[in-house]
């Protein structure tokens, strides 16, 4: 198989996907290879394109809150948060401080479980399944809290237009603080593992490097960008909601490789823990919702930006004065980060692809995994994702 790949005048294409574990939306990647080296990469998206932007134009302002929450199963709260914030601005409704604090609290809890989920999957792709199991066990602590607070593990529906649905009681406060202490201890351990474990560093250090200039050119967002030294975090650059009262520090690394992406995400968690404690200990008093939220919203446009676990979420909302939006535009961070993978893939080993893809933290919602290898003569060899992953692990095991 490998010999055939190096035949002259024939570009070898390795299609990966569309059923693929390393993407929020199942995506179809095609890697052109020269032997083991990737020489070109393209992507095809849209396998779970659900027409949400179009659908939003046929639903009222309130219904859309629940529609946008279903854009992503991991950062569901962030979408509802961004949307609600935009619509409230457009309607000139001031959300009570306590509701804003609760929104940010849930957003940070979501960031923790999202980062832990990513951390586990990334460890799995590197062949470090013990780390995967430990981190996912720990993640359950946060999932339990979210379920206790909202009634749901995912799609918590914490928001209503003009506030939040539930209060945080003293009992909640105690449970969350205990959980945060536990998570902080675990995160310290994980940070130590990813920066010292020789086997793990072999898969991350110096791999998939995007320097500051490249990161800017590729338009990378979120922790992936901050790992390349891009000082960009909406929570800091344009503080919104309760981040004004409870500021957060930006975590930036400069190496730009996979290791830096691990370090940024884990260090970011310590800031989340600090912020959660601060919010719980200084929770503003007051109402949870505004008394009345208009059904019709006056004509106008608004831009709402929020820092999701994966980077900046950008909403553009336009109202024509009716009960439904005229236009709802959603730009998620994964869209830009996916483009960056294509650029970063070139020149890397095929064995690095699984780690490179997970490095940007796409969502892992797919269940079918398949990689097909075929050459230009039409010969086929079916690879499962599992086999590609194993190929990566074996490739590096031989090098030890």
């Amino acid at each position: 198989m490998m010999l055939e790949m190096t035949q002259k005048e024939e570009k070898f294409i390795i299609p990966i996907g569309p059923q693929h574990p390393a993407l929020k939306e199942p995506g179809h990647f095609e890697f052109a290879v020269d032997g083991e080296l990737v020489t070109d990469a393209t992507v095809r998206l849209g396998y779970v394109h659900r027409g949400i932007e179009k659908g939003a134009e046929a639903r009222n302002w309130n219904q859309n809150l629940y529609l946008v929450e279903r854009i992503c199963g991991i950062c569901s709260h962030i979408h509802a948060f961004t949307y609600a914030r935009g619509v409230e601005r457009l309607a000139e409704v001031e959300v009570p401080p306590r509701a804003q604090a609760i929104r940010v609290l849930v957003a940070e809890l979501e960031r923790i479980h999202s980062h832990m989920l990513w951390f586990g999957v990334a460890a799995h792709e590197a062949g470090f399944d013990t780390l995967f199991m430990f981190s996912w066990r720990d993640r359950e602590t946060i999932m339990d809290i979210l379920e206790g607070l909202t009634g749901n593990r995912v799609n918590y529906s914490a928001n209503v237009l003009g506030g939040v649905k539930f209060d945080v009681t003293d009992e909640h406060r105690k449970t969350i603080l205990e959980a945060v202490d536990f998570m902080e201890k675990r995160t310290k351990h994980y940070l130590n593992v990813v920066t010292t474990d020789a086997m793990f560093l072999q898969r991350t250090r110096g791999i998939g490097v995007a320097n500051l200039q490249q990161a800017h050119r590729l338009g990378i967002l979120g922790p992936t960008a901050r790992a390349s030294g891009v000082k960009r975090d909406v929570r800091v650059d344009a503080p919104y909601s309760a981040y004004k009262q409870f500021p957060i520090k930006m975590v930036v690394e400069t190496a730009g490789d996979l290791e830096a992406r691990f370090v940024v995400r884990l260090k970011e968690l310590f800031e989340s823990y600090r912020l959660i404690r601060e919010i719980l200990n200084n929770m503003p008093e007051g109402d949870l919702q505004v008394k009345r939220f208009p059904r019709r919203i006056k004509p106008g446009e608004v831009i709402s930006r929020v820092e999701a676990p994966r980077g900046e979420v950008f909403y553009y909302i336009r109202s024509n004065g009716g009960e439904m939006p005229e236009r709802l535009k959603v730009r998620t961070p994964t869209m830009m980060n996916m483009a960056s993978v294509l650029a970063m893939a070139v020149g890397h080993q095929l064995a690095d692809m699984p780690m490179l893809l997970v490095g940007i933290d796409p969502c892992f919602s797919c269940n079918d995994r398949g990689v097909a290898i075929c050459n230009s003569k039409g010969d086929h060899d079916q690879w499962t994702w599992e086999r590609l992953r194993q190929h990566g692990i074996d490739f590096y095991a031989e090098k030890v």
Partner: protein
Amino acid sequence: MLSEPITPVEDLLKQAEAILIPWIPEEAIQGLDDGYPLMLNYTDRRIKVTGTGFPDCLDVNVSAEELLTVIQTLLDNDWGYLATITGVDLGVEAGEIEVLYHFCHGTAVVTLSVKVPRENPVVPSICGIIPSASFYERELLEMFGVTITNTPNTDHLFLPDNWPDNTYPLRKDFVMHAN
């Protein structure tokens, strides 16, 4: 860990106004002391009539011919990054499609608005200056049918390969079938 002071949104917008001054219509500038620093009156500073006047936004109407020059000017002055490109179908009656280029810098957002006729919508590709815009342009092309001259890739990004030609789902006259 870093904690740098945030540049006030007024300063950022002043910079943007100074950069974009050639494209800001005179009637918006009139009545200001010397016209500089601009800080157009916030309540009516949005140059677009539909705007609601958020104090962190500056919207400028630009023609398709001028678009590349304006964006290049913003980039030369190191003002912000392209957040996304939004298409808005203004409807069959209005007969126009609006293409919005959003640039973010800290708290401030500058939106360049290009209006093109619905029957023959053409905008230039900005990939020559911002390579990462390719995905946004592909989305704009397949969802609104806006022709983008010199864009490097015109393949479908989100819609299926067998999607019918000349059918653009985010146009207002595209009706979704009830289930």
